[in-house]
C-alpha cells in the first residue's frame, strides 16, 4: 500500500487521502445515526416483531399503532402543546431579556457592569440539579407546581446567561455610527435598539432563538420535578410515564422518542448555519 502511495503524484495522493477520509467519516456517521434510525424502525414494528430475539429481521408488516396510542392513551396531544408553550415562552423571555442586557453590556457599560457580566458567566455553570432543590420549595410556596410557569422560569434562568454571551459580540459588530445617527434623529435608545440594532443583528438573534427553543423543548429536569399532573406535562417528562413499575411500553416509548426528536432535528437542519455559529461563539 505504501509503495503504491509513494508512486503516486502529490495531487493524486491528496485525492486518495480525501477518499479515505470520506470513507472513514461515512462509517462513523452511520454509527452516529444508528440509535435514532433504530428508534424510528422499532417505533413502527408490531409488538410481536419488537419483542423477539431476531430484531434484525425485516418485519412482514409495519404499523402506526404506537403513534396512535401516544395520543389516545398517553395524552401526547396536550404534551405536545405544553412543550410548544414552554419552548416558545422560553424563546421570548430569553431573547427579549437577554437581547436588552447583551446590548446594554456591549454599548453602555456602567460601573460594575463588568462584574455583573462575570457573575452571569459563572451562573452558566450552576448545576441545574442544585437549583431545582430550592426552586421546588419556592414554587410550592407560590403554588406554581404543576404548571408550565415554574418550568419556563427555571429553564429561562439557566438559558439567559448563554443568550447574553451569544448576542453580545453581535451587537458589538453593529457600527456605532448607525446608532448615533438614529439618536440624532431623536430616537430613544430603546427605539434604536428595537428598530435599528435588532434587525441588523438577525443572525445573532436567530442563533439565540434556536438555542433557547432547544433548551425549552428538551428540558427534562424541571418538568419531571415540578409536574405530576399528566395533562400539564411536556413531551420529555411524558416519555418517563411509559416505564411503569411493572411494564415498559417499548413501542410507544420509541414512537414518543421520535415525536420528541423530529421537531428539534428539523429545526436544527433548517437553522444549521446558526447552530454552528452558536457552537463557535457560545462556548
Amino acid at each position, binding site marked *: 500500500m505504501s509503495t503504491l502511495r509513494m508512486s503516486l503524484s502529490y495531487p493524486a495522493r491528496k485525492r486518495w487521502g480525501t477518499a479515505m477520509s470520506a470513507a472513514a467519516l461515512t462509517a462513523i456517521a452511520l454509527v452516529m445515526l444508528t440509535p435514532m434510525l433504530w428508534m424510528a424502525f422499532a417505533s413502527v414494528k408490531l409488538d410481536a416483531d419488537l419483542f423477539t430475539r431476531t430484531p434484525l429481521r425485516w418485519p412482514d408488516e409495519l404499523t402506526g399503532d404506537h403513534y396512535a396510542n401516544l395520543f389516545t392513551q398517553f395524552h401526547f396531544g396536550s404534551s405536545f402543546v405544553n412543550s410548544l408553550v414552554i419552548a416558545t415562552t422560553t424563546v421570548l423571555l430569553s431573547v427579549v431579556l437577554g437581547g436588552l442586557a447583551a446590548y446594554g453590556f456591549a454599548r453602555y457599560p*456602567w460601573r460594575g457592569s463588568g462584574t455583573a457580566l462575570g457573575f452571569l458567566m459563572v451562573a452558566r455553570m450552576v*448545576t441545574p440539579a442544585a437549583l431545582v432543590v430550592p426552586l421546588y420549595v419556592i414554587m410550592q410556596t407560590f403554588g406554581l407546581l404543576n404548571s408550565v410557569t415554574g418550568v419556563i422560569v427555571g429553564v429561562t434562568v439557566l438559558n439567559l446567561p448563554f443568550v447574553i454571551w451569544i448576542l453580545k459580540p453581535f451587537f458589538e459588530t453593529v457600527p456605532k455610527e448607525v446608532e448615533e445617527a438614529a439618536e440624532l434623529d431623536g430616537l430613544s435608545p430603546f427605539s434604536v435598539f428595537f428598530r435599528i440594532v435588532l434587525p441588523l443583528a438577525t443572525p445573532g438573534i436567530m442563533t439565540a432563538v434556536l438555542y433557547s427553543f432547544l433548551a425549552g423543548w428538551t428540558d427534562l429536569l424541571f418538568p419531571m420535578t415540578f409536574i405530576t399532573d399528566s395533562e400539564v406535562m411536556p413531551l420529555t417528562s411524558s416519555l418517563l410515564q411509559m416505564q411503569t413499575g411493572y411494564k415498559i411500553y417499548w413501542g410507544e416509548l420509541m414512537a414518543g422518542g421520535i415525536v420528541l426528536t423530529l421537531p428539534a432535528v428539523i429545526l436544527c437542519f433548517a437553522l444549521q448555519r446558526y447552530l454552528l455559529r452558536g457552537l463557535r461563539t457560545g462556548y
Partner: protein
Amino acid sequence: MSLVTTSHRGEAATASPRWGRRQRIGLAFTVPSLAFVGAVMAYPLFYLAYLSFHTYRPLTSNDVTWAGLANYLKLFTDSAVAKSLGVTLQFTIASVAIEIVVGTGCAILLANVMLGARGPFSRLASRLLGSAYIVPFAVPAVAGAFAWRMLLDAQFGPLNAALGTTTAWLVEYPMASIVIIDAWKMMPFVTFVMLAAVMSIEPSQYEAAALDGAGALRQLVSITIPSILPIMVITAAFRAVDAFTKVFDTVFATTGGGPGDDTRVFPLLIWRTAFTHLDFGAASAQAVAALVISLGFGAALLLSQRRNAA
C-alpha cells in the same frame, strides 16, 4: 474614583461623572435580566444555603428546623457522597477524553474532505456528511437515552443480535455504557468547534510542508495538532465542567444510577436525596458542595482564559 463624595444625591438630578446618561441607559438595559437572574437564581441559591443548615423532611414534618453543620458532616460520613463524586469524576474524564480524541479526529477528516471536495456533487456529499454529525447533538437527551436503551437491550436489542450475545450492557458495563452514550451525544459539539479551528489553518503551511516532502502523518503532527492544541485544551476544559455539572438526563433514563449506585452521578445523587428520599437539608448540602466544585473550577477557567486573551 477620587470624586466619590457627590455620588448618591447627584445621580438622579444631574448627570454626575460617575452615573452619566450612558451609564443609566446601560443600567436600564441590563436591569431586567439581572433582576430576573437575581430573583430566580441568586435568591434560590441563598435559600439553598439556608436549607443546608436545616432539617426539612416534608414526608415526616413540614417544619424547617435548625440542624447546624449536621448536613455538611453527612457529606463526609455518608459513603454515597464519596462514591458519587468518584463516579462523576470517572464519567467526566472518560467521556471528555473520548469526545476530544474522536471528535478532533473527525474534525480533521471532515476538513480534509471539505477542502478536497471538487465539483458540485462531492461538495454536496461533504455537506451531507457534515450534517449527519449534527443529529446526535440535536436529539433531546431523553430521547437519545431511550434509543440507546433499546439498542443495548439484553433480549430484544439489535447489538446483542448482531454479536450473537445476550449481554445486559447497562447492568454489566454501566459506566462504559453511559460514557459511550454521552460521547455519542456530545462528540458532534467537539467536532464542529474543532472543525472551525482546523479550517482556519493557513493552507500555505501544508503546501510548504508538502514541498519539503512531509507526508500526511508528519503534517498532522507538526502543523495540524500544534495549531489547534490551545482550542482543544479550552474545549476539553469547558466540556469537563459541563459534563460534571449537567450529566443527568442520559443517566436517569438509562441506568437510573444503577446497578446499586455504580453510576449515580452527583447531580442524580442530589436529586434522589431531595425528591426520592425527601431529605431537603442533606440534598442542599450536597448541592452546595456541587456548586463550590463547579463554580470554583468554572471561575478559574474563565479567569485563566481572560488572562490568556489579555
